[in-house]
Structure formats: structure tokens, C-alpha cells
């Protein structure tokens, strides 16, 4: 097979910082959802926007700004239609514009776009500006940014505030433990089979313009080099004669997920007759981790590619191979649904004949073996932030004050192919009522509990036991409600510069 040109280096100065950094020390943050008031002014702002990049610095910055656009936003900015069409269908259609997509993603009932606070078809922002800052700096900095030029360019539709819950999500569990490691150096042989689960993922899964896990370049808008405005864009690595609007850019999925933290812990409390230890244990089974973030399964004896050795990664060094019957981490546990952590073949065939045997399907005749495989094609980088005030489980089961404000997650993920990454995970794994041979249940945290077909309920949660019958918990209420969301393009620095000049 002819090896496609490999990227020897990705210029971090051209990549927005969020792809590489979570900006964890910048604990203050907000997401500004903007409408373009004046295209020329918006372009002028793009030319000077102080965007933080992925370049490593001795000290993390005090403030960081990131900017992304919906397809409506790119159109409003003046991007020609034929260029825009080079973006993926799901980006063009948007998160909420297609009933069928909403159905697939589970955005129905109480989570249906019609009731969203932002992002419903009539309410789609053009621009997303993300601001992160060290404690005490956000408000002042945000004011500073609202220059006359800004005000001429944008109308503020919505400001999504965030809060710092110290690395925990609102239900109280340590979050963000499992993240794919991006292959910045191009060390992975993209496109080759992966026998073992690997956490190192081709750069093309998270950045446009580079080889993805299939060893291909994900489609994105390419432009003729003759277009003078495109001069500043980088060339496409697969078609050097073309300029690549996507290169070093990627897609951002932002969703406001309101979490009924009180409902969650109260439900668990009822299920366990208010036994605090059991209550926590049941919650941990649903999440698939302890509240401190430790996995429920044993640490993998062998190293896992893309997970550093050393104690700081202990809670991520596992697969579910150690737990084939789900007695430690239930099949339906949230982290198991979100990333089943498997390689390309069942039984990990070492050499040619067993591999052939495996390919032909003769090595996986067990009830659950090989229902799904190849998780490497379905990974996302999560960069979400919480909002609202935290609650401990004990506080959550007490009666709520009259002015109890909503809390939840501004879920944000990064991927180069929204349909194969975010949408697949959401549809085929998390919200699926048939995930991994299960039936009658979807994600214990995220599920919308909507009956399917002719009234089959989906509100159960099954906990397999090492001996005897599984425990089946029925009647799970909906704990998470989608309140808004959209798909954005996160351009590279050079693409942002190009966008600032499309009106010239």
C-alpha cells in the first residue's frame, strides 16, 4: 500500500489551544453565543482576535480565548456557498435542524430542541467565543474585550456561565479521566489494524488535514490555490495543489446538559433505603467509576499505548477484558458505554491464521463476544465545564431551597468527523437501548427513558452478579435534560485569518 504523506509536524501555533489543553488552571470560564450584527465588523474582529494557540509555554497563560463558528455563522461572515459546501453534512445541517438526527441522538421529549434555551432552529448562534481565565480575572477581561469593534460586530445571544467544581461533575464524580492521547508526532501507523486497545489516536481524528484512523483525510473544504484570499491557508497534505481551509481546525460539539442532581441522589436513596454507603455504591455502578474516579475493574497488567506509566494515569489504565461478564462494571455503566475500550478483533489474535479465523467470524460465538469492536474510530476529546453550584450526595437528598438554581455540564467535545465520533458514541453506545446485548435500558445518567417501538420501556439498569440472578433496577427517571447545543467549526489561526479577509 503506498504510504500517504505523513505529517512530520503539526504547527501548534496554528492550532487553537483547546485541542491540546484543557486550561484546567484557568478555572473561570464562559461561553459567549453571538449573532453577527455586521459581517465586515465581525471579519475585522477575527483579524485581531487574541486567540490562544496550542504552543507550549513555560507558564500557562492567565487568560485564553477561543473562537468557533456554526455553519450559519460562516455563511453570515460571508464564506462563499461553494466553499461552505465542502464541510460535512452534519455540520451544515446542524445539531437540531433535522428531526431524524434528534431522534438518533436521543434529543426527544423533554430534551427536544423545541424547548432548548439556545440552539433550536430559530435560535442558532453564529459564533461561539470561549473565555477561560485564572480566578478573579474573567469578568474584567470579558469587559475589556467588549470594545466598540466587538459591539459593532456582534450581538450577545446568550452567555453560558461555568463554575469550577474541582474536577468533579455535578453528580459528584471525578470527571475527565479518560481522554484519548493525540498522536501529534504521527507515530501511529494510521490505517493499520489495532489488535490491542490503544489510547493513542491518529491526529486526523481530532484535527482536519491529517491522516485519520482509516489512514485517510477526512473531507473538508479545499480551495484553489489561485484564489488570492486563500494564499494564507496551508496546503492540503493529500492534494498539495489545493489550499486546506480545514487543516489544523476541527469541530466542536457544545451541549448544555442540565443535571437533576437532587433527582439522581434521591432516586438512589430510595433504592437503597437511605443507606449512604449503598447509595454511593449504586451510583458508582451506574457511572462505572468510584466517586474519586477509580475504575471498577482491575488495572490492566500490560501497558496500554497512549496511557503513560505512573500513578497519575492509574485510573485510566484498564480495559473491560478483565470483566467479560460485567460483574464489576455493569455493561450499561456510563463509562463502559462511552468507551468500551476494545481493539479491532475479539480474542486478540496474534498472528495470521488466528486473525483470519477471527475475521471470518469463527472465533466469537459467545453470546456477547464481538457485538462491538474497534473503539478507535469513535473517540472524542472532552473539554466540558460545569455550571451551577455543587451538591454533595448528602445535601442532594435534603429538601431543596426555593431558589435552587439549575446545574449541569456545558458538554464540549472535539472531533474531526462529527457523525463517526460524537454522533456515533451518542447514538450507538450511550443512548442505544440495545447496547452490547442489553435491552430495555439506555445510559443510566443520560438516558431519556423514552419507550421505543410499541411501548417497550427503556428505564431499567441491570447489574450482573458473580453468582445468581442480575439485579435489575427499574423506573429510572430522566436525570439529564438537554437544554441547548450546536455544532461549531473551530478554525486554525490561519483559517481565521482567511475568514477575516473573505470580504476584501
Amino acid at each position, binding site marked *: *500500500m503506498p504510504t500517504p504523506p505523513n505529517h512530520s509536524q503539526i504547527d501548534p501555533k496554528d492550532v487553537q489551544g483547546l485541542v491540546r489543553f484543557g486550561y484546567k488552571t484557568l478555572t473561570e470560564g464562559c461561553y459567549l453565543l453571538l449573532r453577527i450584527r455586521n459581517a465586515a465588523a465581525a471579519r475585522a474582529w477575527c483579524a485581531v482576535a487574541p486567540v490562544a494557540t496550542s504552543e507550549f509555554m513555560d507558564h500557562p497563560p492567565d487568560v485564553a480565548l477561543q473562537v468557533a463558528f456554526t455553519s450559519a455563522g460562516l455563511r453570515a461572515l460571508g464564506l462563499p456557498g461553494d466553499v461552505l459546501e465542502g464541510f460535512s453534512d452534519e455540520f451544515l445541517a446542524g445539531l437540531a435542524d433535522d428531526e431524524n438526527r434528534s431522534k438518533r441522538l436521543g434529543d426527544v421529549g423533554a430534551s427536544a430542541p423545541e424547548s432548548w434555551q439556545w440552539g433550536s432552529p430559530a435560535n442558532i448562534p453564529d459564533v461561539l467565543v470561549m473565555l477561560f481565565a485564572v480566578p478573579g480575572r474573567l469578568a474584567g477581561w470579558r469587559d475589556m474585550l467588549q470594545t466598540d469593534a466587538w459591539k459593532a460586530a456582534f450581538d450577545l445571544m446568550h452567555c453560558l456561565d461555568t463554575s469550577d467544581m474541582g474536577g468533579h461533575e455535578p453528580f459528584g464524580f471525578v470527571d475527565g479521566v479518560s481522554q484519548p492521547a493525540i498522536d501529534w508526532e504521527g507515530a501511529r501507523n494510521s490505517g493499520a489494524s489495532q489488535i490491542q486497545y490503544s489510547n493513542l489516536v491518529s491526529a486526523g481524528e481530532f484535527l482536519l488535514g491529517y491522516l485519520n484512523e482509516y489512514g485517510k483525510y477526512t473531507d473538508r473544504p479545499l480551495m484553489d490555490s489561485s484564489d488570492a484570499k486563500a494564499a494564507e491557508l496551508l496546503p492540503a497534505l493529500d492534494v498539495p495543489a489545493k489550499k486546506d481551509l480545514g487543516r489544523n481546525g476541527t469541530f466542536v460539539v457544545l451541549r448544555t446538559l442540565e443535571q437533576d442532581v437532587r433527582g439522581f441522589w434521591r432516586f438512589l436513596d430510595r433504592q437503597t433505603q437511605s443507606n449512604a454507603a449503598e447509595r454511593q455504591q449504586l451510583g458508582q455502578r451506574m457511572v462505572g467509576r468510584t466517586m474519586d474516579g477509580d475504575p471498577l475493574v482491575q488495572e490492566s497488567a500490560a501497558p496500554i499505548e497512549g496511557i503513560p506509566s505512573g500513578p497519575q494515569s492509574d485510573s485510566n489504565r484498564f480495559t473491560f477484558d478483565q470483566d467479560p461478564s460485567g460483574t464489576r462494571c455493569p455493561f450499561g455503566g456510563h463509562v463502559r458505554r462511552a468507551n468500551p475500550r476494545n481493539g479491532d478483533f475479539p480474542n486478540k489474535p496474534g498472528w495470521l491464521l488466528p486473525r483470519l479465523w477471527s475475521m471470518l467470524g469463527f472465533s466469537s460465538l459467545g453470546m456477547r463476544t464481538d457485538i462491538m469492536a474497534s473503539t478507535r474510530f469513535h473517540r472524542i476529546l472532552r473539554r466540558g465545564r460545569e455550571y451551577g453550584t455543587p451538591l454533595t450526595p448528602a445535601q442532594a437528598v435534603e429538601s431543596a431551597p426555593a431558589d435552587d438554581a439549575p446545574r449541569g455540564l456545558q458538554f464540549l467535545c472535539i472531533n474531526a468527523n462529527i457523525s*463517526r465520533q460524537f454522533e456515533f458514541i451518542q447514538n450507538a453506545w450511550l443512548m442505544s437501548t440495545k447496547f452490547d*446485548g442489553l435491552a430495555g435500558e439506555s445510559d443510566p445518567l443520560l438516558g431519556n427513558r423514552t419507550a421505543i417501538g410499541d411501548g417497550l420501556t427503556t428505564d431499567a439498569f441491570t447489574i450482573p452478579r458473580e453468582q445468581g440472578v442480575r439485579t*435489575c433496577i427499574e423506573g429510572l427517571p430522566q436525570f439529564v435534560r438537554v437544554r441547548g447545543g450546536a455544532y461549531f467549526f473551530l478554525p486554525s489561526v490561519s483559517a481565521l485569518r482567511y475568514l477575516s479577509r473573505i470580504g476584501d
Partner: protein
Amino acid sequence: MTSQSSLMVAARVNRGSIGPLRALLATMNRAPGQADPDNPLVPFGKLANLHFSRFVVLDDQTLNDITLYGLPRKEYPVYLAFLCDFDGGVASFLNDLLDCASPGLRQIFSLCEDFTASTDLRRWIRRHNLPIATSYVNWPGRTMKQVREEALLHQAIAAYLNANSNQLAGQPDHQVWAQVRQFVAGETGAGRLTLTPPAPTRPLTALGNLFHLVGAGLLIVLLGPLVLLLVIFIIRREETTAPVYAPRLDLEAQQKLSVLEDHEFTNQFSAMGSLKPGLARRWVISYILWLIEWTARHLYTKGRLARVRTIHFARWVFLDNKRRILFASNYDGSLDSYMDDFINKVGFGLNVVFSNGVGYPRTRWLLADGASDEQKFKYFLRRHELPTDVWYNARPSTTAVELERNSRIRRGLEATGLSKAEAREWVQLL
């Protein structure tokens, strides 16, 4: 065992009748593309042996693609296709079908070219029933009756377990097995559950199968080297230059297809296209479909087509003197996840068949690459997809994996004794 058979009636439709035909077909639906089981034209729900059925207008939008080879566009007729997958033989199914749907079928088929008020419906259907090149049945022998009985069995057991969860908690596997077995015996004794034993295989069917296993198997082995030569000397050279044409379908057309999907867990897929020109291609695909047919009949009979566990029924049918081909399947999940499952698990299997179609992403030695150009492959398939006007599924929202689970539960109950490991495995099914 009762074998599954299928029917595919294909009859020409006048271009002018396509609109009225689609409008008529739409009256059979309760949601876009979803048949109402009680619709007055073809009340599918009354056909106890029917697994899946569909009406699809075979109006190929890709006929221009052959011009990539410098050949002139060839006009082909538009067909109305009516597909059914059912238990038992064609004759008895036709009896049932005509008993409950004759007037409706006459009304539908009257929009086909050669159907008049005086046409003998049964003979007309027989005459228009196309031979199937390859058919795949998830679990040959599993009848609708069995599917229904085993689903009720699973439901009853689940309800029993939940009602007795306190008493059962902590009981060892064997005890659980014995107790459930006793419960089921009580239920069947009281007539609340029925588990009909499988019908004996008819001697003629068994003989036919054996003959196919050996005869077709031998022929496949003997012809293998010849096909290999074709691949080495003709296909390999051809595939390096064959035009690839897999543009993305425009959003609007895409959404027209997707409104017909995701109403329940199982979905339909219909696609058609022209074969690459040349006899070599036609011989190779004929051989390969024959080989797949053989493996589907003798090897992949237990819920898996190679590694794929999401197909209920699927088939390939040649049209127009093997110039064109139709693929129709009934599968679990959304189309994107179905395609991902295929690409990642059996990309080589997709390549050996679909790469014989005009425009398919470039393959290497017929087996490699192709589908692993994931986006192009998906565009190619979407572009060749046909809107399935009417689709009926007799076991809505039940995946093939669940059907297998139910059968395994039953098998465990019918065993006279289980080892410790078997008992563990059985209890985990519940």
C-alpha cells in the same frame, strides 16, 4: 426445521405511473415508510409466517455513471419490487397472501405495465418472481412462531425474576435455573406459555441441503482457481484504473432517505447500481455471490455473517441480464452505525461484492482498501440507496442479538442438566 423462503416480485412501471404508485403505497403507512400492519391494501399483520416485507420502486438515479467508462447511458425500466421473507414454501405463503390481500395487490400492481383487470394474480406473481442470487437469513429455521413464543418466554421470565428478586437474590446459578425451569413448566402446563417443538426437516429439504453442501461446494472449489486467474490477470489491472465515483448525496436527498429510518431499532436498506462493464466482472460477482450463498446456507447459520450480528435478512438480486444488481437488507441500528460495523468488521466482504459496481472506492486485489475509504464508501452507498416506500417488520424493536438470547434461554431450559459453567452462562442471559 422449517426453512425460510423469499419472494421478490419485480414488474415494470410506466414512468407516468410512478407518482400515483408512490402515493398509493404511502397510504399503507402509519409513519413515513413504516407499514401499518392492518392497512387495507396488504394487511401484513395477518400473515403469521411473514418476517419482513417491503415495496420499493427501483428507480435508479445513477444510470449516468456508466458514461465514466465512455459508454453511452443505457435506459433501464423502472420496476416496482415487492419483497417478502417468510417461513415455509412459496406456494403456501402465496395462498395466505392472496387470501388476505388480493384486491389490494391488484390495485397496486395495476399500475405496472402488464397487469390488467383480467390478469391471474397468482400466475402473474409467479412470472415476475425474480431468482435471488444470494440470500442471508440470520438463523435459518427460526420461524416467526418461534420468535413470538420465545419473546413471550423471555418476558415471562423477566417478570418472574423481578417479582421474586428478593427470594432469588444470592441463590446459586443452578438453583435459579431449576426454579425458573419449574416456573416455565408451570406456565406451559397452564397454557400461558407455548413452546412448540421445531417441525422435523422434510427429507427432501434435507437432501437438497446436502446436495447443495457437497455439489455446490465442489463446484466452488473447482472454479476457484479460474476466478483467481480472472482476478490476477483482468480484475487487478482493471481496478487500478476503474473510475471511482462516489460524490456526496446532497442534503435534501439525504434527508428524504433518512425520514424513512430510525422509527424503531431495526431498519431497512435498499440499494441498486450498475455492474462494471466486462464479462470478467460479471463472472467474478456471480461466483462470489454463489460462494456467499453457500457460506450463508452452511456456515453462517447461527446469527453471524462473518463477524456481523446485526442482519436479520438480506439478499442480492440481479436485474436486467446481470447488468444491474439490487441489495436489500433488514438490520439493527442506524444506517451509519450499520455501515461502521461493516467497514470495521468485514470490509473485505463489502469489497468483494460491491466493488463490482460502477464507481466503488478503489480496491486492491478485490479484497483490500475499498470500504476502508470510509467516507467515500458511505457516500457511495447512500448515493445508491433507494427510498423504501413501504416496510414491514413483524418483530419491531427486537434485535437479532435479542432473538439469539431468547433462543439460548429456551435451549437452556430444555436441557436436562447443566454443568456449573453452563448454568453460569445461562443465568447471565436473563
